């Protein structure tokens, strides 16, 4: 099998949600001292992008999307020690901070977004739920964050999303970060009103949005 073919097999193992095969191929990559960065980018990474598309197109149920991410994570976990010992590491596509805003304890949506971002090569700092704007901004500064993502479930908790932008403006550091919103009640109108940089309706769109903003 030539290298390109192995990459294709790797992508396929993710798309067919075949964990055994993915684990086998990841180990093979280590044994054969393949270019591990390429293995992730062209191999497994290509697979997770397709899985996202399949969900977007209505072919995959949510657990199947999550299964793709779960298998991706297993494969990357196997490869990471090899990458580190060769002195390189998976290139981070960027660093994203995620939090559910104060007053709101809804975590599943934010966690799914975090999972898909990680699977797509972003570093994610997840602050959890019911997080105050002050804490979000402090952690963003400390963590050398590129994008701040704020999640919410209800219109009544959504109002607190704006506090993050207000605080960044107050501190004169609004232009240091991109800020994106998400959650069922969020609309483009709300994003415009707050002066945020965008929103996404689901996890796959979130990955696309973050990619766009980070370029």
């Amino acid at each position: 099998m030539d290298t390109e073919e192995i990459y294709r097999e790797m992508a396929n193992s993710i798309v067919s949600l075949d964990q055994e095969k993915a684990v086998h191929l990841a180990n093979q990559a280590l044994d054969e001292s393949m270019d591990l960065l390429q293995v992730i980018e062209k191999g497994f990474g290509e697979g997770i992008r397709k899985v996202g598309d399949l969900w977007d197109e209505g072919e995959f149920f949510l657990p199947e999307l999550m299964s793709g991410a779960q298998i991706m994570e297993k494969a990357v976990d196997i490869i990471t020690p090899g990458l580190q010992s060769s002195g390189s590491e998976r290139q981070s596509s960027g660093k994203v901070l995620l939090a559910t805003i104060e007053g709101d304890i809804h975590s599943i949506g934010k966690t799914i977004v975090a999972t898909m971002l990680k699977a797509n090569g972003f570093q994610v700092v997840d602050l959890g739920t019911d997080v105050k704007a002050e804490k979000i901004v402090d952690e963003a500064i400390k963590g050398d964050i590129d994008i701040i993502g704020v999640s919410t479930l209800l219109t009544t908790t959504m109002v607190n999303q704006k506090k993050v932008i207000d605080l960044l403006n107050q501190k004169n550091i609004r232009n240091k970060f991109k800020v994106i919103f998400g959650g069922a009640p969020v609309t483009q109108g709300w994003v415009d009103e707050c002066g945020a940089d965008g929103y996404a309706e689901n996890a796959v769109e979130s990955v696309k949005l973050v990619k766009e903003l980070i370029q």
Partner: protein
Amino acid sequence: MVQRRTYEKISVKKEDVISYLQPNGNFTKKLRAKEIPKDLESQIDQLLHIANDFMSPKGIFQLFSVNDLPKRECFAETQQVALAIVTIGVKLPSEVNRLMSEGKYVDGVIFDAIGSAGVEKVADLVNLEITKIAEKQDLSFSSRYSPGYCQWSVNDQRIFFSHLPADDIGVTLSDGYMMQPIKSVSFAINLGTNIKKSKWETRCKNCEDRGQCTYRLS
């Protein structure tokens, strides 16, 4: 008089769980629900099998004279209103968080969907009791409706929490009007004469979201 209910076990329907796990994107355009793969279906079956160990279904409700409630569009043509809060407790949501943090994303999202379907099931049970009371008194009754839907503001969660001792079933309201545990629902049912033809009960007929809203009453 305030009524409290605790249910030993509830039977959550698989179809209801699946409805929360549907693919996104073009799904609605396709109109036809996609068949669920067999192995995914059996995984849902397995988790449904143990789900009751993680749920403590509880409900609380009371009938009020409309005169004891603030004036609202939804109360305009009724004589009595039943207010109810239901929950499945904190155990299932914590289990979801644990699963997600351990990288067991598939089980995590399925369990989360079971929780959503579960609390709706508890709402069904309390709903049924309320409609039976209405029938006994020869009253007509509305479908159940909740703050945060249609024209009813989430802020009116306050009405529920000031009229019902929600602490008794372990549900609290945050400053942002969110209920804890997360898998909780509040709802109202109108009871009176001629409720079926009231403006509120027939609100979908003149709604500008008609055709787009998934919550439409016939």
